[in-house]
């Protein structure tokens, strides 16, 4: 008997979007069940229905063979269902332990027994092999750990079935491996896991069965052992997907960005960037490889004017751009895909149209004679929604009605359409489906072929290797190696540099800088 089953589920959102269309979905006890599908296919929606955050328009949800009404997440938790969301929902100013025990506090008189909370957290963390620091504040810990906190939080509430919505989108490869180990561990302990992802490799690596969704319907459920990436991709997209990008060789042009001796220390004096110097050239994608948290984020933010550099300079076509704020950087035709779209890539409550003009609203044709031209703004929105295949009924809806991947497409659409000379792209394909990855990758490569200089930052080493003409490795705020991306370069070799086990000397680095 399946532990969870949905029968003929329909979900129509109040704005008319039919997000789940006759869904029959079964999860067996003790399995790892992967759920895949393009952006906006309705995966998150289905999970929200099971978790009681949304209610089905019609249809039944069965739990251990019995029909249940799940009114709200509380009900779901009582049934032993836990969910880790695509977008985390932790209280940033609380500590890890506080977040985990939230609403389940052991009281000591009128105050919460913090020691108890810390001990519980540590014990739980030990038990499931999910390392966290109980006393750290959420805002100070890396995403990988935040995710482990989310999982522990669900387990603390007695989850038997754990729904993980795109857990790996924000993880580095090694964190992903750790997560997989933990998930396997959970299943051995008798739990059931539903796992949403866009990465088919992961599906193959971890799941027992896969359900594929497309356009709000279930296309099919197959045993992982009896399928492969190609077939899954075809089921998802409805056509053959070529996961290779076509990167024609081009002669690189002149230097667009020159960074010279850049250092950056945060408020507490930690040196996060140390004497960084490099060039990015026309017709070139320079990929930065590195384990997340080695200064890549800071580098992107300093270069785009979001943080002031401590010392050093950066030039675009001979003009110094640092220290003058984001507007000035953008005026130099620099575009930026930020690494976390929810923090600063979009304004959730604003419309898609408004989100698509943040870099250009003050210029013609969007502002004419001091007034916004609504038609121009709507045309811009319509145009980009079409061109970048953003699934949305119109540009007038707020971004928070979009699926995660479509939000990312909004960001990418805006940045690529700003006719930049330099694009700083941090995690450009985070959370988007394979069709869209293919599209974004091709778009990046095409623009590079047409002259754009791209600085690509990605936690996904394969992505870096697939797209880049040159690869630079960062380790602890320093550049430890620069390589042309030719056949001789292997993931393994880069891996040594990423872990700080090897570094080039100055002369070697000079050769390819």
């Amino acid at each position, binding site marked *: 008997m399946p532990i969870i089953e949905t029968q003929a589920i329909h979900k129509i959102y*109040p704005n008319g979007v039919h997000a789940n269309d006759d869904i029959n979905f079964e999860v067996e006890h003790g399995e790892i069940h992967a759920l895949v599908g393009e952006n906006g296919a309705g995966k998150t929606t289905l999970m929200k229905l099971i978790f009681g955050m949304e209610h089905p328009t019609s249809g039944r949800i069965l739990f251990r063979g019995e029909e249940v009404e799940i009114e709200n997440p509380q009900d779901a938790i009582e049934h032993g269902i836990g969910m880790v969301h695509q977008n985390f929902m932790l209280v940033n100013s609380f500590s890890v332990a506080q977040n985990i025990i939230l609403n389940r506090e052991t009281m000591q008189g009128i105050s919460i027994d913090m020691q108890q909370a810390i001990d519980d957290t540590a014990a739980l963390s030990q038990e499931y092999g999910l390392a966290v620091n109980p006393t750290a504040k959420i805002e100070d810990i890396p995403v990988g750990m935040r995710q482990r906190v989310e999982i522990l939080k669900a387990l603390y509430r007695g989850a038997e079935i754990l729904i993980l919505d795109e857990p790996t989108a924000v993880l580095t490869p090694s964190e992903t491996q750790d997560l997989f180990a933990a998930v396997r561990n959970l299943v051995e302990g008798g739990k059931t896991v539903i796992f949403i992802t866009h990465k088919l490799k992961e599906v193959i690596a971890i799941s027992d069965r896969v359900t594929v969704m497309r356009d709000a319907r279930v296309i099919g459920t197959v045993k992982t052992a009896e399928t492969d990436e190609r077939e899954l991709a075809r089921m998802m997209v409805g056509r053959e997907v070529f996961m290779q990008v076509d990167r024609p060789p081009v002669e690189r042009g002149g230097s667009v960005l020159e960074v010279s001796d850049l250092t950056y220390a945060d408020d507490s004096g930690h040196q996060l960037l140390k004497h960084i110097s490099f060039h990015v050239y026309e017709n070139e994608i320079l990929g930065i490889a590195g384990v997340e948290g080695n200064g890549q984020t800071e580098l992107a933010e300093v270069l785009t004017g979001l943080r002031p550099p401590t010392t050093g300079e950066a030039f675009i076509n001979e003009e110094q751009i640092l220290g003058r704020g984001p507007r000035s950087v*953008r005026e130099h035709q620099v575009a*930026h895909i930020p690494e976390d779209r929810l923090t600063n890539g979009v*304004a*959730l*409550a604003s419309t898609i149209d408004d989100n698509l003009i943040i870099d250009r609203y003050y210029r013609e044709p969007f502002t004419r004679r001091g007034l*916004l031209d609504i038609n121009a703004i709507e045309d811009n929105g319509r145009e980009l929604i079409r061109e970048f295949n953003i699934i949305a009924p119109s540009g007038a809806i*707020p971004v928070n009605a979009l699926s995660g991947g479509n939000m990312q497409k909004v960001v990418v659409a805006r940045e690529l359409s700003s006719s930049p000379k330099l694009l700083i792209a941090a995690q450009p394909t985070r959370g988007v489906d394979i069709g869209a990855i293919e599209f974004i990758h091709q778009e990046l490569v095409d623009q590079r072929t047409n002259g754009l200089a791209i600085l690509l930052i990605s936690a996904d080493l394969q992505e870096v290797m697939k797209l880049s003409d040159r690869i630079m490795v960062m380790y602890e705020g320093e550049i430890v190696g620069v390589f042309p991306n030719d056949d001789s370069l292997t993931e393994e070799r880069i891996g040594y540099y990423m872990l700080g086990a090897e570094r080039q000397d100055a002369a070697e680095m000079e050769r390819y800088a």
Partner: protein
Amino acid sequence: MTAFRTHLLLILGGLSGLAVTLFITNTMFDGSIEKMSATPTWQNVVLVNVLIGACIFLFVVELRRGAIRVLLTVVVALILGFLVTFVFNLDSSLRFTRGEFRVQVVSEAEALDVDGVDLEYNRVRGGHFNKPNVVEPVSEVAWSFAGGEGDVVSLLAYAKNKRSSVDPLVELRDESGAVLASATSATVAQVEERFDDLVRVTDAVIADFQLPADGTYTLYARPEELATGTIMTEAFQQTNVAFEALLLGPIQRVNRWGAWIQDAITLILIGLSFAIVFRAEQFSLGAEGQLYFGALVSGAIALNSPNVPSILIIPIILLASGTAGFIYGLIPGALKAYLGANELVSTLMLNVIATGFFDMVLYFQLRPIDSAYVATGKFPANTVLPVIVERTQVTIAVFLVAIVVFFCWLLIRRTPLGYEIRIIGSNLKFADYGGVNSRRTIMLSMALSGVVAGFAGMHLANGIYRELILDLSLALAFEGVVVALLARLNVLVVPFAGLLYSYLRVGAQFMERDANASFELVRMIQAIIILLITAEALVTIFQGRQKRADIDEKGHAVEALEAGDV
């Protein structure tokens, strides 16, 4: 949205607007054309009512389904208010058993001469039943009188005067305490013809009773017990009267209507001021201080320009009050933007400073030396906003408001600065990332909202009071917060919200005046309304702003859309 639905919405909005315009005009003039055309400047009354209709139109078109929710909230608030009033009236039904009374034994016979009796024939005695706040309230009386065999007596127990509503009963008892006769009421004939002292039929009379023997008898009287049904009906009727005053009071006569409109103008201006800063997610409460500065500046100019023609001086005053508000908004704006000072705290402090400064200037500079109380004395006529409806203080400020609403809309929805305000209100980090100069935007949003608050001050000074007095704003500024929230921070809906809210405010005054509802009760009803309105509006606004897409309540996205988060 399809073209069909858009058209439907426009038609619906237009019809609602028209209906309201007609209803108000009709009620004001009792549906009589003669009465209307006999009213001076009736054209302007109609014009203003048309503008009110336009506010309704905007309300429907802008909030769409949200409009129904707003209306439902108001209706629920009113029903709750009705229930509270009803309960209070129930309680005060006790006053039917409360009040001054008189008793009398009427007889033409010679009285027996017995010592120590309480009543003599034809002598009036009385007291107060159930007087509140006394240690031992009188709830019944048993007074003895002496009577001879065959004496024909009439026993009366009655309310002392028409206004006291006590409804007594009366009994005649003999020495052993046996009831010989009793009565709870009188006939109309008895009241009108026989007994001059009786005031109405609820008074009790035992008429023409022949005493069976010599002896002392007892007249026993107490308030009649009321049937529960009677109490209910009574309370219900009272409540109805009160609510009629609340709901129709403000549009019953031109002068009352004027009170409503002038109050609404102030509230709309302040509401707009809050809508602008709240849009930028700046929790500035500085409108109060900006209002005082606006009023002070316009008052000072008015007092010093007795001979400048209106056409010249009024624009100058307008400009000056706006500038004063601008500057007084710029200060907390700059403090926030460049020093990170919390705007909530700084504006509250600045409010204190502004009122203090206003009082001081008023006291030491502007007040005529010989004046008995703290006020400037009336402004010269040329500096007062021209009245457009006679017998009211409805001035050209009506048009000023219409223009200000238009410009606020233009600012928020059609200018780059407005875009910046909306974006920093939606996600400050996103604005920074996109290159918006968020410091400048924060500062300007606060300063521009100050301009509108400054206008409100000018309207109070030169339109309503026509002089500067202490406590000019009467904390009106904070009611503007409710208006802005009610309008979901949508500047096009603020006029409706201001009208609605001030309608309830003014209506409550009439309820107090016309229906004898106690002031506390009126305040309570107002509080219920405010509470529900704000709760509902806050829920909607927070839903619209929720930062995590994935934890949204069902359907909120549409809600945000409907709330005009565009």
